[in-house]
């Protein structure tokens, strides 16, 4: 939630998969925390895969534009954004005027997305945010080569069964995601500075593997996961400014 287009006055995150219930709950919580009501909100902008079904929204914008707006708001020097989210992975190219000029998204399947890491964390019986710490302990990352999530799952199981350490397997999983996404980035062309947004940005294992693949430093922030939402809020503010009427 953004005030006057510059002050973040509320954030909330909920990983929920059914319809727009999660978004409704978030809105309720964020308003409650800020001691505000719906009437205080000038414009709600929806983004992400449920953006067209969220009734309280006044407008909708793709997560591509939203991530670009969010990242550029906090890091105006960024020219390449790598966003690895739950359902897709994308690389955004920003021009020198700070405008999104092209993008590349994952093809075919879930490989290279956050969902891939979720599935792997599930079979390793650990929370997804545990992967980073364990990957750091790897001395020799295993090779996870399958692009199919289910095949990669069986690859992980057989690597563990033949004596590979959990740490090496986790590092291999991170490398596998990084390798898929690096392919997208190379296709669209890397221009520094590079920033990583989306939930997977929190995973240092993937970030470092990406830096190694792309041979450039990759910036990120604790709020990387919120960049899409921030971009949506900025866009909402832009819409209100265009309309010319703001709540006092």
């Amino acid at each position: 939630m953004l005030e006057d287009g510059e002050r973040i006055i509320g954030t909330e995150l909920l990983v929920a998969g059914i319809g727009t219930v999660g978004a409704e709950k978030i809105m309720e919580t964020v308003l409650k925390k800020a001691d505000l009501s719906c009437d205080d909100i000038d414009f709600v902008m929806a983004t992400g895969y449920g953006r067209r079904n969220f009734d309280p929204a006044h407008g909708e914008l793709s997560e591509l534009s939203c991530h670009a707006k969010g990242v550029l708001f906090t890091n105006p020097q960024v020219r390449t954004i790598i966003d690895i989210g739950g359902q897709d992975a994308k690389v955004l190219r920003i021009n020198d005027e700070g405008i999104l000029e092209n993008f590349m998204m994952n093809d075919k399947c879930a490989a290279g997305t956050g969902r891939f890491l979720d599935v792997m964390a599930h079979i390793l019986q650990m929370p997804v945010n545990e992967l980073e710490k364990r990957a750091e302990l790897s001395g020799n990352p295993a090779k996870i080569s399958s692009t199919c999530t289910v095949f990669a799952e069986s690859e992980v199981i057989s690597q563990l069964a033949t004596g590979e350490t959990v740490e090496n397997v986790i590092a291999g999983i991170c490398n596998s995601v990084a390798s898929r996404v690096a392919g997208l980035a190379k296709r669209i062309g890397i221009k520094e500075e590079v920033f990583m947004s989306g939930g997977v940005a929190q995973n240092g294992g993937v970030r470092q593997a990406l830096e190694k693949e792309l041979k450039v430093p990759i910036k990120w922030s604790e709020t990387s996961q919120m960049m899409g939402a921030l971009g949506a809020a900025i866009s909402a503010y832009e819409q209100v400014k265009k309309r010319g009427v703001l709540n006092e």
Partner: protein
Amino acid sequence: MSNEVKKKSPPDPNSAKFKLGKIATDAYVDAQAAKDRGEMIGWCSSNFPVEIPETLGLAVCYPENQAAGIAARGGGERLCNISEDDGYSNDICAYARINLAYAKIKDTPEQNMPQPDFLLCCNNICNCMIKWYENLAKNLNIPMIIIDIPFNPDYEVSDAQVAYVKAQFLEAIKQLEELTGKKWTEEKFQEVMEYSGRTSRAWLAATSEAKHTPSPFNGFDLLNHMAVMVTARGKKEAAEAMEVLHKEYLENVETGNSTFRAEEKHRIMFEGIACWPYLRATSTGLKSRGINMVTTIYADAFGFIYDDFDGMVKAYCNVPNAMNLEHARDKRVKLIKDNHVEGLLVHTNRSCKLWSGFMAEMSRQISEECEIPHVAFDGDQADPRNFSEAQYETRVQGLTEIMESKKGGC
């Protein structure tokens, strides 16, 4: 109070749409009539020189067109499953899987065509075609005539390539004469060549009217009309219908009308075969955002202009999937510049490895040279299991937002 019934006005028999639709429908009817008369009829791949069966007076049907029709009417998955149950991999072209299934079951509610007595195959469109037709020939125990037009790694077609392919054209004519008893005459070939030229010139002229803003037509029209360009170029009716189409587009330019029934906010080029099972979803995703797909490589690909037999051979060596990347790119760059295209939407078509394979690099080069964004979405020309509407929508919306922001909006 009675419910108001929205009456659909009857199609104008003088319109290009009606005439072109009739030619496409008649192709099946005529082939069935020939079969009923006891004549031999063929199945023919889409870039096989149509002039050969046309000059010989042989009726042929086009499995690719039939498969597209079946897929558009919802039968794609059913027929793909039949082929897959028979052991064909779902990695094989869905047109091939649908047609191999049709050759087995011989009847579908979506679109029937008579069973063949011979097969005409040309690999200038893809090499999957060879194995597809070989399997048909074996399963149906009928002869297959193949013309080998290899992928050309050079920019221009060489005399050596023309000589290699011409010998095969002549051999194919001889084989068909022996097989069917029909005779090739120079007089008839001249007539077919003349109609083919007229049809092609009218097609090129009609599609080039997209240079106007707004475009006088919705580019999705081309995906339907091209069926006639593929199958009936050498017919008098096709030449006349295409000339009517061009006239209609010219009238639209003058009156400011268009077959694109929305405000044209953005103009894109569509790359790849249509996603037939989701034609409505893919088309609505564009139209709802004011995006008109003003051109496709089909606009250029089916304009076969030549003056003699050797010229015809050369034209068939120069079709999009047989030419090198630089030549293919330059043709698209010209279409983009001529038609003021602002974005490129690429169908990464699981069925067509050849086309989708070279598009990754070609899109990058086109995007760079024309300074336009390009976006790819996964789909399939006929197998509905390879498409996600939500993923398509996100990509198209992203493309729209970039085009808008380049114009100072968003």
